[in-house]
């Protein structure tokens, strides 16, 4: 039982909060710009590598450089939007998907060009866990990651509910034409969306890199679980995406637990396939997600 908590449930929560942060960004861009951004996973890698460089340059703690990494990544994402997505905005959304597919490869190769393809991590050595109740082992970094993720999600919640910008974002997600008619500056809403999405993606990348390590292929490995989380929560629903991320993270970790007998239910080799399978099943059976999101028709 204690093994279950230590090796399956807690890592599941940590992975889940990383997925949740990524999924919020995907679901916001899907809801407001109406296209699936394939480059989002690479944004997470980019954020993690920027933070890595900042941390090794300044010698600060990863969490201390996090705000700067988030800002730089958000700026990079806004730049990508200006260069590659805005010129295509009047075209069919599927052209944007192709463009984001190309951008995914571009960002990845740029990351490999600058930082190389090797594994990197923030901290060397093994962290000593806190031991609670004699056997429950909790790593301080896991607590920090989950707390910071919850803090960021609260910030997104406040932005969406309490500010004019958030209200405009929700209005545009509901109906872009109506939003434009009521005088909302849609380009500004799009800018806010990219900043929020890019910042959260960077945070998610940094958290994952802080927990384990970062490498140039990370973004693609994260992309499908994040799409799965966004779909599970219902496209265009930030709270759904948060819940979806947590669910996908937990399922991925718990799927290898020996629930029946002593064998893992799913062979560890197929662990990453779980999220894809959930996603494909969801797309086919319930594209509106568990939280009744929207299904955009072309």
């Amino acid at each position, binding site marked *: 039982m204690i093994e279950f908590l230590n090796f399956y449930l807690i890592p599941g929560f940590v992975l889940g909060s990383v997925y949740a942060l990524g999924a919020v960004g995907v679901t916001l861009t899907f809801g407001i710009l109406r296209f699936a951004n394939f480059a989002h996973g690479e944004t997470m890698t980019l954020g993690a590598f920027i933070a890595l460089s900042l941390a090794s340059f300044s010698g600060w703690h990863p969490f201390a450089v996090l705000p700067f990494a988030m800002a730089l990544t958000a700026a990079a994402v806004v730049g990508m939007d200006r260069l590659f997505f805005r010129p*295509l905005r009047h075209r069919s959304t599927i052209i944007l998907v192709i463009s984001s597919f*190309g*951008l995914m490869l*571009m960002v990845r190769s740029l990351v490999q060009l600058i930082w190389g393809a090797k594994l990197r991590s923030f901290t060397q050595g093994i962290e000593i866990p806190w031991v609670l109740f004699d056997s429950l082992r909790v790593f301080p970094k896991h607590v920090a990651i989950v707390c910071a993720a919850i803090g960021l999600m609260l910030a997104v919640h406040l932005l969406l509910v309490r500010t004019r910008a958030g209200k405009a974002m929700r209005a545009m997600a509901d109906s872009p034409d109506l939003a434009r008619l009521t005088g909302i500056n849609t380009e500004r809403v799009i800018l806010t969306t990219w900043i929020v999405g890019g910042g959260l993606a960077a945070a998610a990348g940094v958290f994952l890199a802080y927990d384990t390590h970062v490498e140039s292929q990370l973004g693609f490995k994260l992309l499908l679980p994040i799409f799965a989380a966004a779909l599970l929560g219902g496209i265009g629903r930030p709270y759904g995406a948060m819940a979806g991320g947590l669910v996908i993270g937990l399922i991925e970790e718990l799927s290898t637990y020996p629930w029946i007998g002593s064998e893992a239910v799913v062979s560890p080799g*197929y662990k990453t396939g779980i999220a894809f399978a959930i*996603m494909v099943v969801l797309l086919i059976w319930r594209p509106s997600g568990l939280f009744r999101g929207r299904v955009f028709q072309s």
Partner: protein
Amino acid sequence: MEQLYGIFLYTVFLLTMGGIYAVLTLGLNIQWGFTGLFNAGVAGFFAIGAYTTAIVTTAASERHLGGLGLPPAAGIVAAMVASSIIAWGVGRMCIRLRADYLAIATLGIAEILRLVLKNEVWATNGPRGISVIPKPFEHLAEPWNQIAMLLLVVAVVAVLYVLLERVWHSPWGRVMAAIRENEAAARAAGKDVERLRIVAFILGGALMGLGGALMAHHIKFIELQAAEPITATFLVWVMLVVGGSANNRGAIVGAVLIWTLWSAAEILITGLPPEWAVKAAYLRIFLVGLALQFILQRFPDGIFRERRLRTVSSPSIKEHSPCRKCC
């Protein structure tokens, strides 16, 4: 002279590869160009074709499934049948999805497939791959076997081109364009949209399987890394977008052009010192991505525009359709 001969052989090898990419691009053109189905899992169908023919045609081995030792022709047919069956299954499940969702679903399915190929070591020899796949015309003398393989691939591309042109100008092709341009209208005209889309998806999948099988026979070896999923899919997409979707000639020209640029860069890269070579390989992908963005923004039709069908009663479809939203 020796060197010239080497260059000649290498050129023949590269042209053969370009022809195989043309088969893949023609396959994607049926799905995306004609029908508007966004398949982001090209590499998956490619892998099915390659592994099927590898298993069917290789000699018995303890490392992987197979040992039938059938001739390559049988392997190619088996590959097309296998990829058609998978395409049918995927199509049955996913064909109703909107383009974005279809892209995500096909990418997910291709990834699951890659995991299967990686983990089911008893059948596929896992990451080490299957080697000693027989190559057609292997018994011929040195330059002729390569030339014969090239001619075979060129013949395959030519036959496919003629067939697909006929299909495209047939009533069936017109229905496909109608579905792509205005699904509701096609449905209202009594067309079975789902069934037609599945047929197009299967045809495209079969061609991708054919491409995979030809590639396996050409390089005599198949492993997971050989078809790095995203790069392979991405390259085929770039080929189609650059050449011009919904135009078979565009698909072929795009494939050969991009493949030539891609391998010319490869030759340049191998001349560099090792530490630069790695970086240049990344830069190459970046530049191909940039080229795609450039074409998307400046030349949305690609090199060859889609040729609109003309009939007596309606001078041009374009004039009748209020907008071209789909592509």
